[in-house]
């Protein structure tokens, strides 16, 4: 479990304050542009130094750990592409973290990526998520991983995220994404957490989601 306790981030006159946020399974941090979602994720990852507060992962205070040493996975906003083939990338990070990428790739159903050299934006995002999982993170931080993806790529990424068992703090401004994947939805407004709500609508939205999938529906008509 990931816990954020009494976190305060100050940027000039702007403040972000989180009294307590617990991420047990899939928590979506929902908020409009400028609410402080990405800033919070960066602070949890250690990329921004907060004025005060603690980050606790499975009972261990990691607030003083360097970014490189935090047991967290981080998908930044925008698609990250490394100048190497997908296979080389997975092999490199497998070696770095002493893991084996083959069972993971097989489990995630991403074997096709290994045969490719140039990936689409959506495939690159899937590869980034698979790469992060090689670290065996105790929690995942995802900053709008579906931003800039078309519908089909978005579906691929969301399905992958849904299948993960690691606790995830998933940032989005899109209520549909939030409803699709969240167990809990934390609403962030103007640097304040307005509340954390159970996602009571998930199953209904997942059923309705197929209704929105015009690509598939029109093809089968």
């Amino acid at each position, binding site marked *: 479990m990931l816990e954020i306790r009494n976190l305060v981030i100050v940027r000039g006159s702007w403040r972000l304050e989180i009294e307590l946020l617990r991420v047990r399974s899939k928590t979506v941090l929902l908020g409009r542009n400028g609410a402080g979602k990405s800033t919070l994720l960066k602070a949890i990852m250690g990329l921004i130094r907060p004025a005060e507060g603690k980050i606790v992962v499975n009972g261990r205070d990691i607030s003083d750990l360097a970014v*490189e040493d935090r047991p967290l996975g981080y998908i930044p906003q*925008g698609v990250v592409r490394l*100048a*190497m083939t997908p296979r080389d990338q997975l092999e490199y990070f497998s070696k770095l973290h002493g893991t084996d990428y083959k069972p993971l790739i097989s489990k995630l159903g991403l074997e096709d990526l290994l045969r490719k050299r140039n990936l689409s934006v959506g495939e690159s995002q899937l590869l980034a998520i698979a790469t992060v999982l090689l*670290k065996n993170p105790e929690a995942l931080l995802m900053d709008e991983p579906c931003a800039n993806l078309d519908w089909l790529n978005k579906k691929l990424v969301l399905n992958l995220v849904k299948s993960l068992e690691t606790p995830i703090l998933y940032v989005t401004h899109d209520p549909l994404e939030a409803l699709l994947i969240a167990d809990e939805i934390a609403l962030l407004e103007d640097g304040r957490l307005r509340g954390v709500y159970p996602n009571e609508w998930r199953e209904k939205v997942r059923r309705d989601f197929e209704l929105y999938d015009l690509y598939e529906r029109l093809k089968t008509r």
Partner: protein
Amino acid sequence: MVCGGAVDRILLLAVAVSMAYFILLSLPAVIVFGATPSPSFFWIVASTATYATVSSLIVLPISFILGFALAFRASGSYIMPLILFSTAIPHTALGVLLAPTVFSLKITDTAAAVVLGMFVVSLPIGVGVMRASFAAQGVELEEFLRSMGVRGVRLQWFYLRASPTSVILAALLSWFRAFSELGVFLIVAQRPQTVGIYIFEEFLKNGPTAVVSASLVLLAVAIVLTLVAVMLERARNP
């Protein structure tokens, strides 16, 4: 010249325009002064190129490290002007600022002073190109890699892999900047003779006719190098 399977028309156009530009610039000088090649000139070009290569070999790794350090830090915006200032003042003034160091090291009019002068004028170009290249790759790459446990030299290795054309471009531009320097050398290193000093002195001694051919050779080299830079840039951003 092939881009995506078809001949790169923009590059062909650049070559044609460059040739026309070369003729346009060189013809008046050739017609008015004539062009008499000097046998010593090519030796001076070769030695200047050697000094510029030595300077660039020192500039490049420093540019890489500084460019990387300045690309993703807010302080980079404040520090860059301190590095770039030498491009904004007359290079004779830069030579005057460099003179105390050269005099105290007792290297006036030596190859060491030439390389030092070249280093000072070409470092800002190298740092500027590398910094821009790293910044264009976005801070997200750095954040992602650090979150994956990549740090230090490994982190820079990823950026190096992602931007080989930028490294070549930085090397090329800093080399040519070093090669074409004059102002600093007028103050601290008139010997061994470099291309800029040669043209300046020959012009004073024997008039324009003596240096037209030398200038045209330099112009041709500059145009070719610029075209290579354009090709690299297009390879990076097709």
